[in-house]
């Protein structure tokens, strides 16, 4: 039972630090309210991007400064706001309060909780709009961001501090790639926690921020459920601006995500931010701009649509050691229509990012999942973001795949080809086969290297393509049971020595004796 004296004592303690200040505010009167945009007279001292409050308690942000009025976009429902209502400035630019308690939470772009738990009030106020770190404050990207997806880690490696675009039509697995990456970061973080290793050759644990823009609530609930099941939610913050939220929130959500990431980055942490997806942010910004009366350009987008994405993605950075050494890695997602990557928004974002992962419908339909077209996908950071171990096994695979693609057109003439060409085709089929991976099952780097080595070393050339998946799975388990030192050496990230290769070959020879091929029925 709480004593009333205790309550009074607590209140006195809290009031003790209070100082009364005379308040001055700049106020205005609502003149017009339509489509979530308010025009108000007065507010002569309002700043661009300043947060304003209406009498009903609703919040808005100033987006247009005209001669005698300002235009404000609403961040809440606009039903209660009518002509003649008072609106006042707060003197604050839009920001979100962030603290370590935000890990594992689901919030909206203003920091309000959506998971039924308490609002985070104590913390650092991070501005949504901020100038990106300058050239001098950065260092080159050279630490891998392991996605756990073989096709990406081997062929299109991503580094910490890089911006890698995931692009493709709807339903091809763009979000799946991002979620698998988040799950893998959580697994790596737990592994680092177990070993308490101070060796950060392969990097520190990564915190993930997933920004859901314009998505269905059911889809978001599924994603949250999956992250919970995979025990990845504790390491993740989810920012949600759903399809039913005002366009202003969908426009601001990515900036809220990167503001949260900057809080952790400034503490020296590495952060992964997924923007799913920026196409919907562009639509929301187009809607706001048209209602604000800004001139419409190509595809009715406003003139600064490029700047919308460029200033967001420039905030993904790897800071120099003098600035803490933290990083933000961005995985923006863009949805194309009918595979058209030459449309306005896709080309804009492609020109901003440091590479792209293309997902193709043809590959998806033919059972290659993740449906990544490794041939046209690019990582401009490249092998600088790969460990020595991965580089040594994946190096020649790119060439073999490229040769396979060149020859694939002749596959129908299989019986008329020379032995060398046949061999190249068979090798290519097996490489394509090992790139298939189940969803929500990211692999450790050691497992990835084992799979790739098993095929590139030629040991799988005599295994039917339909048995290759089972072959590599069982080989992994066999290596673990026979010689644990091999996976440990591979996981260290150091270049694979001849000694390790010899040990691997020895284990492979033993394994193949006991491996039985299943005939395809």
């Amino acid at each position, binding site marked *: 039972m709480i004593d009333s004296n205790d309550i009074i004592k607590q209140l006195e303690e809290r*009031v003790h630090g209070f100082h009364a200040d*005379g*308040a001055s505010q700049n106020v205005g009167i609502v003149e017009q309210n339509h489509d979530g945009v308010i025009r108000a007279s007065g507010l002569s001292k309002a700043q661009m991007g300043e947060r304003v409050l209406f009498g009903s308690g609703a919040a808005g942000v100033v987006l247009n400064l005209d001669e005698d009025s300002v235009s404000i976009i609403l961040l809440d429902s606009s039903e209660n706001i009518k002509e003649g209502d008072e609106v006042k400035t707060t003197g604050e630019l839009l920001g979100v309060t962030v603290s370590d308690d935000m890990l594992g939470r689901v919030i909206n772009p203003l920091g309000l909780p959506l998971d039924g738990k308490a609002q985070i009030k104590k913390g650092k106020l991070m501005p949504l709009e901020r100038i990106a770190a300058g050239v001098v404050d950065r260092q080159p990207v050279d630490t891998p961001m392991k996605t756990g997806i073989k096709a990406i880690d081997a062929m299109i490696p991503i580094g910490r501090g890089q911006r890698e675009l995931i692009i493709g039509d709807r339903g091809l697995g763009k979000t799946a790639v991002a979620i698998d990456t988040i799950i893998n970061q959580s697994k790596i973080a737990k592994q680092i926690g177990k070993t308490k290793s101070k060796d950060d050759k392969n990097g520190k644990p990564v915190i993930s921020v997933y920004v859901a823009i314009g998505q269905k609530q059911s889809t978001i609930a599924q994603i949250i459920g999956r992250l919970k099941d995979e025990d990845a939610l504790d390491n993740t913050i989810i920012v949600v601006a759903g399809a039913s939220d005002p366009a202003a929130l969908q426009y601001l959500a990515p900036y809220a995500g990167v503001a949260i990431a900057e809080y952790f980055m400034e503490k020296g942490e590495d952060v992964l931010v997924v923007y799913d997806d920026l196409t919907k942010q562009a639509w929301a910004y187009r809607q706001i701009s048209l209602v604000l009366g800004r001139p419409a350009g190509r595809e009715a987008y406003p003139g600064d649509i490029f700047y919308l994405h460029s200033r967001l993605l420039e905030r993904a950075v790897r800071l120099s050691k003098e600035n803490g050494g933290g990083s933000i890695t961005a995985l923006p997602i863009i949805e194309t229509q009918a595979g058209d990557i030459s449309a306005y928004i896709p080309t804009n974002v492609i020109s901003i990012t440091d590479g792209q992962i293309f997902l193709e419908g043809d590959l998806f339909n033919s059972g290659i999942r993740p449906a990544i077209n490794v041939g046209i996908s690019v990582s401009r950071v490249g092998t600088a973001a790969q460990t020595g171990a991965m580089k040594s096994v994946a190096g020649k695979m790119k060439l073999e795949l490229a040769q396979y693609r060149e020859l694939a057109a002749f596959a129908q003439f299989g019986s008329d080809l020379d032995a060398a060409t046949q061999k190249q085709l068979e090798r290519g089929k097996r490489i394509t086969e090992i790139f298939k991976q189940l969803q929500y099952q990211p692999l450790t780097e050691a497992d990835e290297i084992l799979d790739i080595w098993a095929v590139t070393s030629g040991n799988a050339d005599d295994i039917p393509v339909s048995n290759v998946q089972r072959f590599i799975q069982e080989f992994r388990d066999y290596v673990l049971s026979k010689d644990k030192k091999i996976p440990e050496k591979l996981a260290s990230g150091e270049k694979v020595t001849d000694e390790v290769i010899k040990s691997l070959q020895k284990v492979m020879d033993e394994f193949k004796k006991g491996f039985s091929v299943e005939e395809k029925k």
Partner: protein
Amino acid sequence: MRIRKLYWIGQSKQSERKLTDMNRRDFKQLANASITDNSLDIEKVKKIAGLLSNSELKDYIKSLKRWINEHTVIVEVPDARKVAMKNIEEVFKNKEIVVRENPSLLLGMRLTDNDDVYEMSLAQTLTQIEEHVLEGYDR
């Protein structure tokens, strides 16, 4: 296109203009032309209003209201008898001071100068205390 005669009253000048739609600047000039000795001239307002259409009248009234707001300071106090008018007039020269009683302030005053509001009242201090106490608690 309608041709209108606009009488620049007070300047004893007559000018003819071809007008399609009047813009904000025109209404601002009309509002300025409705002023004599730093206060609204009712006769001028009536004359100008008579020349405008209904939709133009709305914008003209808005411009007049804007001018009035820029040249008026509203002083809200719990008790109108206890206002140091001389001090306020020294600070806000060339502006009309309007005093209103507002018992909800409890003590102190609220000054509204166009769109700037300065408040030094007990009611506002109590609100600030409430916010200060609540700000440390997660709800």
